[in-house]
């Protein structure tokens, strides 16, 4: 009760402060508003985060996720300069004698021009208050060398400082010491619960369908919530609303096709993008009949359509369906995948207020089929979300912008269900569903104070309530059941309120130098239980409950930002400290599958992570790319593990280096290369061995007290553009890649066992994957 009162006090106080700050801005003056959208002239795609500057004044604004902007200024004539990476800047003079609506269309820079255009002023990275934000240019991602030629946005972001790969060729990643499950991965606002295919080797995002990717590793804006360490906000393309386009590609692993076009020219469009792998197609040619019956493939289907209802309203419907299928003849098969759907309604309330209402659905599930003799088994598990969300953007003036909104999510988790045939001896078992409500209310204010200081401050108030029906148990500290309570439908079992303050500011030292700082608190109420060392489709999401408390993270970061040579080079140094509470681990020997007492298997602890990230990027020119370096430490502490002392988390890697270079040889050939180096993961190796049950058993001393060998790898790719005929739309290109150029045998796992040749000895055996993997991909566009 006292806590609630306190929270209300804090909230009241903040609302008053916001009101004061807002009123400062609105002194009487004859003011008018220019509002509108920024689009790609060639395709009609809305541009997210395009910057609009007023030549006569300092300051300006950027477009929101729907390409919308609004600026309010005193009556006068102004020159608006609109710019966006990869596009020619546009200049427009507007006479603000009355409020205006504007459509700004930017033309893409042609391949040829790209190397010479360097005189663009682009110093948002220095001036904006937000820090820890990375935005990747899809064009650049498409040029980077990747495993088996399969372009992958989630693998490309791992080349940035502070973001670490979860393993060889893995699309999972760790951000600033957080776990792989602490990243909020959104596809058109819908959370994707398992963003990987084939046990992590490929991500679920088909880059043909991706328009924009923004990653927040710190200073998360208040509109995002639900995960501790990062937000990856992926927006799908809207589709070309001017012309029909068919593009696609053939690769080693998969083929892709992408169709887009207008529904109503210049107004509405659609896009359909599909991808399917065909490893199993090769199995069919196998002479081995057992192998012939095996299945192994995945597919993705992205669909999106938008429709303009009127001058002020637009509807978007987007969907994603993806699945992995693995099967071995009749005995065993498994399939898993995500489905998401988002229905959005954009409404321009007036020229200063933009509203978006979203209805979002997300579902992740897996099935395992197993058959022996008369026993036929189906094991299933599912997590399902229905989310209703309302967001407002209020563009007060060119120095001040407010975002506020609310959302409510209904989570349904079906942890495990075993269904058996009637003829089978195995009994059907159902672990009770868990239902919960997650709601959030947020407000955030972006403010320029004078010419030098920019502030974004906000707050997010969240509630998580787990409700019945169901039986909820309590456990003693050894994990033995100590009580049970039955709850009726809709009855509250446990409810958690949290206040998440978020603040970041930048202070500009001069036009090309700034310092920034941020603090944010994040809360996570869905916990991924994985009793294994790599990601698995059967990893289980568990909501907060009477036993499991919300995970909390507090992150402080400070950074220095500088641009050189007319913004051609960008340098940043960021440091962070992150404290984690209520982290979840499991007891030794825990069985997580189909277990009604799963919460008895859990341990709760805390963590800390700190580090420094250096980043130097060359943004334009024939040669561009970057160098990133991270020095960091990540630790966890659990009672009952390592005598209750801090131990290195698995992802604790002291040094992490990545070098990325892209070189444009001429207008037909471009070359790219990446190099990565990192300290090996912290792992637990045996301290000795003994004999139990006539078998060699290893003994262990310290959790994660050893290191895997250092990981390093060089990749290379060359892209050849086909000849372009004037007046013909057809284009094609070839990409040749070589993954792991010098054939480094990086350790994927190290296992200890009796020597197969001499059972009186034990050996350490290293398993490596992917030594010199060549690839070839052909892309086309009609």
């Amino acid at each position: 009760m006292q806590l609630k009162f306190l929270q209300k006090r804090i909230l009241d106080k903040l609302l008053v402060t916001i009101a004061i700050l807002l009123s400062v801005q609105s002194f009487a003056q004859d003011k008018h508003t220019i509002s509108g959208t920024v689009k790609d002239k060639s395709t009609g795609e809305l541009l997210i985060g395009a910057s609009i500057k007023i030549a006569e004044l300092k300051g300006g604004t950027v477009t929101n996720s729907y390409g919308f902007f609004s600026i309010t200024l005193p009556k006068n004539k102004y020159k608006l300069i609109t710019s966006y990476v990869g596009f020619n800047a546009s200049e427009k003079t507007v006479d603000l004698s009355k409020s205006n609506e504007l459509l700004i269309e930017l033309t893409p820079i042609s391949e040829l021009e790209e190397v010479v255009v360097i005189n663009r002023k682009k110093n948002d990275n220095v001036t904006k208050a937000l820090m820890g934000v990375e935005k990747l240019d899809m064009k650049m991602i498409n040029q980077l060398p990747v495993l088996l030629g399969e372009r992958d946005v989630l693998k490309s972001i791992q080349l940035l400082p502070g973001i670490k790969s979860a393993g060889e060729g893995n699309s999972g990643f760790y951000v600033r010491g957080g776990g792989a499950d602490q990243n909020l991965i959104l596809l058109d606002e819908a959370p994707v619960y398992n963003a990987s295919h084939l046990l992590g080797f490929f991500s679920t995002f088909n880059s043909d369908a991706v328009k924009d990717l923004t990653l927040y590793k710190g200073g998360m804006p208040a509109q995002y919530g639900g995960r501790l360490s990062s937000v990856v906000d992926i927006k799908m393309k809207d589709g070309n609303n001017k012309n029909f386009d068919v593009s696609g590609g053939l690769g080693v692993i998969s083929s892709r096709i992408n169709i887009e076009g207008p529904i109503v020219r210049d107004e509405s469009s659609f896009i359909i993008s599909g991808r399917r792998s065909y490893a199993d197609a090769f199995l069919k040619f196998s002479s081995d009949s057992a192998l012939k019956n095996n299945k192994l493939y995945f597919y993705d289907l992205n669909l999106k359509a938008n429709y303009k209802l009127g001058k002020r309203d637009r509807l978007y419907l987007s969907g994603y369906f993806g699945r992995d299928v693995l099967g071995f003849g009749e005995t065993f098969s498994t399939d898993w995948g995500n489905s998401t759907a988002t229905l959005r309604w954009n409404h321009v309330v007036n020229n200063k207020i933009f509203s978006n209402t979203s209805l979002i659905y997300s579902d992740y599930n897996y099935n395992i089929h197993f058959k022996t003799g008369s026993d036929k088994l189906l094991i299933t598990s599912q997590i399902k979300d229905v989310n209703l969300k309302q967001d407002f953007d209020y563009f007060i003036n060119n120095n001040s912008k407010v975002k506020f909104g609310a959302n409510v999510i209904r989570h349904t988790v079906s942890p495990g269900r075993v269904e058996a045939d009637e003829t089978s001896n195995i009994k059907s078992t159902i672990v009770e569903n868990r239902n919960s409500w997650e709601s959030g209310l947020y407000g955030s204010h972006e403010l320029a104070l004078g010419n030098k200081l920019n502030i974004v401050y906000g707050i997010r108030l969240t509630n998580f309530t787990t409700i019945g029906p169901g039986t909820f148990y309590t456990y003693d500290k050894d994990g033995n059941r100590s009580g049970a309570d039955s709850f009726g439908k809709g009855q509250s079992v446990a409810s958690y309120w949290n206040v998440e303050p978020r603040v970041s500011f930048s202070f500009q030292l001069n036009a090309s130098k700034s310092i920034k700082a941020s603090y944010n608190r994040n809360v996570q109420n869905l916990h991924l239980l994985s009793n294994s060392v790599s990601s698995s489709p059967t990893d289980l999401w568990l909501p907060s409950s009477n036993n499991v408390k919300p995970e909390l993270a507090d992150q402080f970061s400070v950074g220095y930002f500088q641009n050189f040579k007319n913004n051609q080079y960008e340098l940043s140094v960021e440091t962070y400290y992150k404290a984690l509470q209520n982290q979840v681990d499991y007891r030794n020997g825990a069985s997580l599958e189909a277990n009604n007492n799963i919460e008895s298997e859990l341990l709760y602890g805390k963590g800390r992570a700190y580090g420094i990230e250096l980043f130097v990027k060359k943004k334009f020119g024939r040669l561009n790319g970057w160098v990133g370096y991270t020095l960091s430490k990540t630790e966890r502490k659990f009672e009952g593990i390592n005598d209750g002392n801090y131990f290195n988390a698995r992802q604790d890697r002291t040094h992490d280096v990545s070098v990325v270079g892209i070189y444009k040889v001429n207008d037909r050939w471009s070359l790219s290369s990446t190099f990565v180096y990192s300290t090996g993961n912290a792992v637990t190796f045996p301290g000795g061995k003994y004999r139990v049950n006539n078998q060699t058993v290893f003994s262990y001393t310290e959790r994660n007290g050893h290191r895997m060998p250092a990981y390093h790898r060089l990749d290379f790719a060359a892209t050849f553009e086909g000849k372009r005929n004037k007046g013909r739309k057809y284009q094609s290109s070839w990409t040749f890649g070589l993954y792991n150029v010098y054939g480094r045998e990086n350790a994927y796992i190290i296992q200890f066992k009796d020597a197969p040749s001499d059972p009186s000895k034990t050996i350490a055996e290293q398993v490596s994957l992917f030594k010199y993997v060549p690839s070839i991909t052909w892309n086309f566009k009609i």
Partner: protein
Amino acid sequence: MKQVLISIFFITALLGCKKEINVDLPNASQQIVIEATVTNATYAQVTISKSVAFSNSNTYPTVSGATVNISDNGVNYPLTESKAGTYSNNSLIGVPGHTYNLLVKVEGKEYSSTSIMPLQVHLDTLLLEKLFWGHESVWVVKPQYSDPAGFGHYYMFIETINSKQFPQFWVWDDRIVNNSISTIPLIQSDSTINVNDTIEIEMRCIDRNVFRYFTALQGSQNNATTPANPENEITGGALGYFSAHTTQRKKVKVQ
């Protein structure tokens, strides 16, 4: 499950390579290992040995001169050293439902533990089946028994192929097959069963602590989880376990 998926990927990737490497492992201090059993069929036996460094050969020093006692409701059964490091008492045949207390005094330290012998579940028969698994078809043995009503029954299976113990064991509980006939297969990670082999299966009904001990041991040994010493119920800090379990063996010939 996880292991299966990972091995499937390895099979299909065909890109992996394995090699023996040298890992510099600091020598942990030697620890006492106690492996103690009371069964309803044969005599009670306790072996005491010591752990060795990873780089040593697989010979483990036996520990002699210990005082070993197992008690059943106040009745003491002292165990005597029958050969170096092995202590036994021929008159202690376990009774299902009874609670057994172990006390070991060795090298100036005391170790104690408790185990309850579960009621015996009868192993009815051994079924054989050819499974199509991966590239090949493999033989599996399916022990058939009727799980009693109520939860909380734990089973362990040990396989001997042509008189040689197979280096893998299976433990499970009755979460999936409760109050029903179980024929869960004993799937080998590296299949070694051929036609004409004689296979002997020992089925043990074990208590919850022993079940958790072996589940954890299995998880740690096959890299499925972050490895750790399995928690046991032995106070004093020894490795190993104390299990009072029922035992039953059956044989089958593969044909």
